[in-house]
């Protein structure tokens, strides 16, 4: 058995069509307009997202899906991260895998019933992320749960770090069902989204370093900047390789929990560290709200709250999880 990490022709087509669609319909610049925030732009493009077959992509045909695999879903998740697409689109990709009920699953695949992510602060509270119009919440914390939104109790809007996402504080958390395989699978897709952020910030920093001139030359000619860019590329490459290696080998005799945990830890670090480096390389512009660099940092912090605590993933890697 050999793990081939180069995308196949079909995978390239799927990823290419999703990326082309996102670049045209949901470019990152959209988020500068408050009218497009909080998943509003995605809601407007919802029919097209359903049409692209994103929901149910990796689900068996017998269960109403397209019969592709986790690798294809991970490629899509990375593309979503590249464009800072609302986390709810990723939640909608994961949700059909969790729905036991045939009717609910079909409704999630068709997009008529919507899902959103929740995170957990403590036993009694958490956040609901871009939950406008969603009927179900997906929560990862140890295991994974899908539950009707109203089980989260009364929710109140909060002003959170990522202002391009609508976040509500919930008055209850969800009971965790220890469905290890589904939790690892979902965590890997979150890792893939985070590698998209790591990749986008790398590319943004490199493009700026190649064109911004000081001391009569592009700042990327200076090793202080060049080496930061090289480290960004290395971090992104390692996180990506681990995420896709874990996706391809999932359920095939590897230690899925440890492989997914490694992907999550590395992808979180890569997304956050690259987002910070991107701001630094953009200098004064990077500190402004006019440059998109801050959007990636804020989203990286939000996304890193979704796969559960780092401590949990560390325990999985060390085999000390209870």
């Amino acid at each position, binding site marked *: *058995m*050999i*793990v*081939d*990490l*180069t*995308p*196949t022709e079909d*995978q390239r087509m799927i990823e290419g069509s999703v990326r082309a669609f996102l670049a045209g319909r949901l470019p990152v610049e959209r988020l500068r307009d408050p009218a497009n925030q909080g998943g509003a732009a995605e809601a407007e493009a919802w029919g097209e997202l359903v049409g692209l077959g994103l929901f149910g992509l990796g689900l068996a045909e017998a269960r109403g899906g397209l019969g592709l695999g986790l*690798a294809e879903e991970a*490629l899509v998740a990375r593309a979503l991260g590249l464009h800072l697409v609302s986390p709810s689109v990723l939640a909608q990709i994961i949700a059909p895998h969790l729905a036991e009920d045939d009717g609910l699953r079909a409704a999630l695949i068709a997009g008529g019933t919507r899902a959103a992510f929740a995170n957990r602060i403590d036993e009694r509270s958490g956040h609901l992320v871009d939950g406008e119009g969603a009927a179900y919440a997906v929560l990862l914390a140890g295991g994974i749960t899908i539950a009707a939104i109203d089980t989260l109790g009364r929710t109140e809007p909060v002003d959170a770090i990522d202002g391009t996402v609508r976040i509500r504080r919930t008055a209850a958390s969800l009971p965790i069902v220890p469905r290890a395989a589904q939790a690892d699978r979902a965590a890997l897709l979150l890792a893939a989204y985070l590698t998209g952020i790591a990749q986008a910030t790398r590319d943004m920093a*490199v493009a700026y*370093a*190649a064109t911004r001139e000081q001391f009569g*030359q*592009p700042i*990327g*000619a*200076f*090793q202080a900047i*060049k*080496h930061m*860019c*090289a*480290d960004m*590329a*290395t971090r992104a*490459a*390692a*996180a990506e*390789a*681990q995420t*896709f*290696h*874990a*996706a*391809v*080998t999932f359920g*095939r005799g590897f230690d899925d929990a*440890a*492989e997914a*945990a*490694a992907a999550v*830890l*590395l992808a979180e670090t890569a997304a956050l560290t690259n987002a910070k480096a991107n701001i630094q390389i953009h200098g004064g512009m990077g500190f402004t709200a006019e440059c998109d660099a801050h959007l990636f940092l804020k989203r990286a912090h939000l996304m890193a709250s979704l796969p559960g605590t*780092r*401590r949990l*993933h*560390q*325990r999985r*890697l*060390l085999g*000390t999880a209870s």
Partner: protein
Amino acid sequence: MRLIESRALDAFRDECRAWLADNVPREKRPPDGPAMRDFDLAWQKRQYEGGWAGVSWPKDYGGRGLSVLEQLVWHEEYARAGAPPSGSMFVALSHAGPTLIVSGNEAQKARHLPAILRGEENWCQGFSEPGAGSDLAALKTRAVIDGDHLVVNGTKIWTSYGHLATWQELLVRTDPDLPRHKGISWVICDMRSPGIEIRPIKAMSGLTHFCQVFYDDVRIPLANVVGEINGGWRVAMTTLGFERGTGTIAHQIELANTVDRLIAAARALPAPDGVGRAIDDGAVAAELATLRAEVLALRSLTAASVSRGMREEVPGPEGNIVALYFGELSRRVHGYAFELLGPRALERGGAHDWPLHYLEAYKWAIGGGTSEIRRNAIGERVLGLPKGPTAREAAR
């Protein structure tokens, strides 16, 4: 992205495993000197006789003629079986041999490749000089044509196993008037030639594996030039990234084993504050988990590199990413032993010589290109950033 499952490959793997189980030398490898070289050559000879030498080398020269996939499987099984490092055969197997396969002429290939695979002769490298390390193209060792010979004068440094090698892949300046990269030739040097003097250099780990080599009117037949005269830079660059990380797979698996060893120690040791086990301490768990995540990522990066290797003729600059990651991680993994194990890690010898492995690990971030030079290569050749002001000047 997919799993390639092939019965033929599985069968090949079983074959590797079975042969290695019966043939990996059980006696301890001598740490140094001619005894070590003889051990390495004998082990190579045994692999040749078993049909396992040069898995992906052409059949005409004694190899198996199989693909990079079988080569990878062989490397993996080799490391898992705990087979000895190629050591003083490394340059011959991983660098000089592949270079001759790509750039050598018929006579050169026929003369040298079978001798390498049969474990009759080994090679060393003569690239770096005291004044040409990271800036390799600054090399000054001069070769002047005299009849049908080159006459070489100068010095090379960091020549691993130079005192124990039969042949050397040597870069010399054959035309000092041409631009830096254009006046260099790649030649096969017989280490037994008159005029060669070798001074072994002791490394900070205490091991003596590399040397400085001095050349005083050393005569090398012109027939030993590989590729064109003055075309040596290209010959060297074609194969510099040849291994794509598969050459370090044995070291990668060893690194993963070292992390396992640290984790096992953390289960047995008390926590830093004396309450419970070390592995349950938050800071210890965070560092060990990160190290384990990174050795998994190193394996994944290598898989990605091999996967590209199945599709490209000439390796791209991405190999620098694997090498940089491995070099930096290697130092951190071994360095963490001191934090985790405390003063007991200071002692040399013992079941696992932590100081030896730690001190040796520094070489991976220096040899074959320092981490800084690799970052330049990633910045310029992978990401397309402009060359720095000094490099621009020198390149003129």
